[in-house]
């Protein structure tokens, strides 16, 4: 393809971005990429090649956005200009749009490194185009079965992606996840991360909806010394000896502080550091350790990692704090059973029963099948939630779920309109009491949009 064609693609993409913004139609996070790729199909590969320090791809069912934002923050503090699909548009068009926004018409890219979160299913295609220097594999949980299909199919796509990596590429993977470890353990240049502190284990038994219970090689159940989250933990197959790989970078001495964050010791090949974060929950410990492993691999210092993690503010529905009418509102995206269970554990870890708004949509990006709500352990709410407002397109399904989880009917308020639901939740609060909003993906976008219009948060593409 000629440079002329590349230039035309960039021009077309940037014009469409300008047009979308002028029309006030949103943040132009995907459409410009689609337009540009229609004109110049190999645009992703050609712009990606101009990044002096290459690209880092981050994928996984849960935590991609936070991990990518952390890594961008660390690299930024190290003086690298990174290009990042911040708005979470993680299909090829969204990545192309991010690159376009930082490209001149002659194909020059204003950035040193690409940090892109990538949709689990799109990984082979994006690897093929961008030829990443580092690939981070976070975790694999059942999610949107109507879209992704079985978890084994997603794992197969990742195996395919690994085969397409360049010889000098490096894979960083979550060793605590037996499904991910099975994909990556034989890759020649691999580093691992995980949790070394078994005191934060939830037990030795897996929760109901856990995936990956059975050894890929022999089909017998793994024996867990510790289960940390979903099917993540320290595991071993007693039949063939397959076990959690040794951890290159690990979180040790983990002390969870509920919704306010955690402290832990990061142990790495270059030393140890005590880390403090306001990101809540064990799932965010994993995100931080993943980002730290990638940052250290790229040559940043441990001190820098520690500083950026300490100053990092949860954003964009991932533990984001919003003040409404004097109340702190925490918004925690909860989009699949494993993620939802962790969010519930974090929110309910305090002494007082909480008030929560649960917003369930069934659009394509949420998964059209809401049966997963029955894999979430909402029974936890019985003792720890004094009022739940259910909202969204599938509010009724959620109301039924809570009824069968054993919540008294008077504790459940059904309000399909999201804005009224938030106000309803706020009206239920005592002075100084926080509100927890737990939305699926598109419900989160919708609620943020409503709050942005009222001036409570910034629009997501500005964030």
């Amino acid at each position, binding site marked *: 393809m000629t440079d002329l064609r590349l230039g035309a693609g960039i021009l077309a993409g940037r014009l469409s971005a300008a047009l979308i913004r002028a029309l006030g139609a949103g943040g132009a996070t995907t459409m410009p990429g689609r337009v540009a790729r229609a004109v110049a199909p190999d645009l992703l590969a050609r712009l990606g090649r101009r990044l002096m320090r290459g690209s880092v791809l981050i994928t996984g069912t849960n935590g991609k956005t936070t991990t990518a934002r952390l890594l961008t923050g660390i690299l930024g503090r190290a003086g690298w200009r990174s290009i990042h699909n911040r708005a979470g548009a993680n299909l090829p068009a969204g990545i192309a749009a991010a690159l376009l926004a930082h490209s001149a018409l002659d194909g020059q890219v204003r950035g040193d490194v690409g940090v892109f979160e990538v949709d689990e299913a799109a990984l082979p295609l994006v690897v093929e185009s961008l030829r990443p220097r580092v690939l981070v594999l976070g975790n694999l949980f059942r999610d949107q079965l109507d879209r992704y299909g079985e978890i084994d199919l997603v794992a197969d796509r990742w195996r395919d992606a690994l085969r397409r990596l360049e010889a000098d590429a490096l894979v960083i993977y979550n060793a605590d996840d037996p499904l991910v470890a099975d994909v990556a353990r034989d890759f020649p240049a691999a580093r691992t991360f995980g949790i070394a502190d078994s005191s934060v284990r939830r037990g030795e038994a*897996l929760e109901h909806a856990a995936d990956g*219970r*059975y050894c890929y090689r022999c089909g017998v159940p793994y024996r867990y010394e510790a289960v940390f989250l979903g099917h993540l933990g320290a595991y071993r197959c007693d039949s063939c000896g397959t076990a959690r790989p040794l951890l290159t970078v690990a979180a040790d001495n983990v002390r969870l502080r509920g919704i306010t964050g955690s402290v832990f010791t990061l142990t790495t090949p270059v030393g140890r550091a005590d880390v403090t974060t306001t990101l809540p929950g064990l799932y965010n410990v994993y995100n931080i350790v993943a980002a730290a492993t990638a940052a250290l691999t790229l040559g940043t210092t441990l001190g820098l990692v520690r500083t950026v993690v300490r100053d990092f503010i949860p954003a964009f529905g991932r533990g984001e704090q919003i003040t409404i009418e004097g109340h702190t509102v925490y918004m925690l995206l909860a989009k699949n059973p494993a993620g939802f269970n962790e969010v519930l554990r974090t929110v309910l870890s305090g002494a007082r029963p909480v008030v929560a708004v649960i917003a369930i949509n069934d659009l394509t990006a949420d998964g059209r099948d809401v*049966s997963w*709500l029955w*894999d979430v352990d909402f029974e936890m709410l019985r003792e720890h939630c004094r009022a739940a407002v259910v909202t969204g397109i599938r509010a*009724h*399904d959620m*109301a039924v779920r809570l009824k069968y989880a054993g919540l008294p009917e008077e504790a459940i308020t059904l309000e399909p309109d999201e804005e009224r639901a938030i106000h309803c939740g706020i009206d239920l609060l005592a002075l100084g009491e926080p509100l927890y909003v737990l939305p699926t993906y598109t419900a989160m976008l919708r609620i943020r949009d409503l709050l942005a219009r009222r001036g409570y948060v910034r629009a997501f593409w500005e964030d």
Partner: protein
Amino acid sequence: MALDLRICHLYPDLLNLYGDRGNITTLAQRARWRGVAVEVTEVPVGTPLRAAEYDLFFIGGGEDRQQVLAAGDLQQGKGGALREAVEEGATLLAVCGGYQLMGRYYRPAEGEDLPGISLLDLATQHPGKRRPRLIGNIVIRWDPPPAGAPPTLVGFENHGGRTVLGSAAHPLGQVVAGFGNNGEDRTEGAAYRNAYGTYLHGPLLPKNPWFADHLIMLALRRRHGEVELAPLDDQIEAQAHEAAVRRAR
């Protein structure tokens, strides 16, 4: 005399893909709300099934790999025990993959047939990877609904295999919106004596509480004779049912 209901949940750790546990929760809660004592026993792979100890059996759906493990285990005695129990009047609900395993065989796109237990007269064939999976919200007209029950059942279906019924199986219902057994003959599910198989998950029973009550009645009747279930306030369930019907169109 106090009523009691003994539920057997087969392969809960293998076949639990689509919120299947919600069916067990719904059966147990709705029975308990009527003062029925409920015992749920989980029977995993490798554990013998003493079928005479249960009134109601449930088997859900799983991924291919899990389904193969369950199919193999069913051939080790559990399948015969289940067939015998159903012939003697036990109640059974099988969903998705579990439904397929109740048939004669599952023929994958490639590779060998997976044997079923021939409890229901049906066979399932995968039409090849090029043909689309049948995915989406589904509404069926229950055929026939028990006296007093609303005529529709709602759920979500997601299956590659196409199921065709033999003459000894009666369809559970006719498709109003969605695909059903095979996307062609408008049938959905299968019924034989007190055994039911269906592609409807969602899970099935929470949004179709009258189907849950029907199963509870059938299961109680066997040991306790004719029983009356006190009506419950099903307003939330009925609203969810209606919302799901609208969503399927």
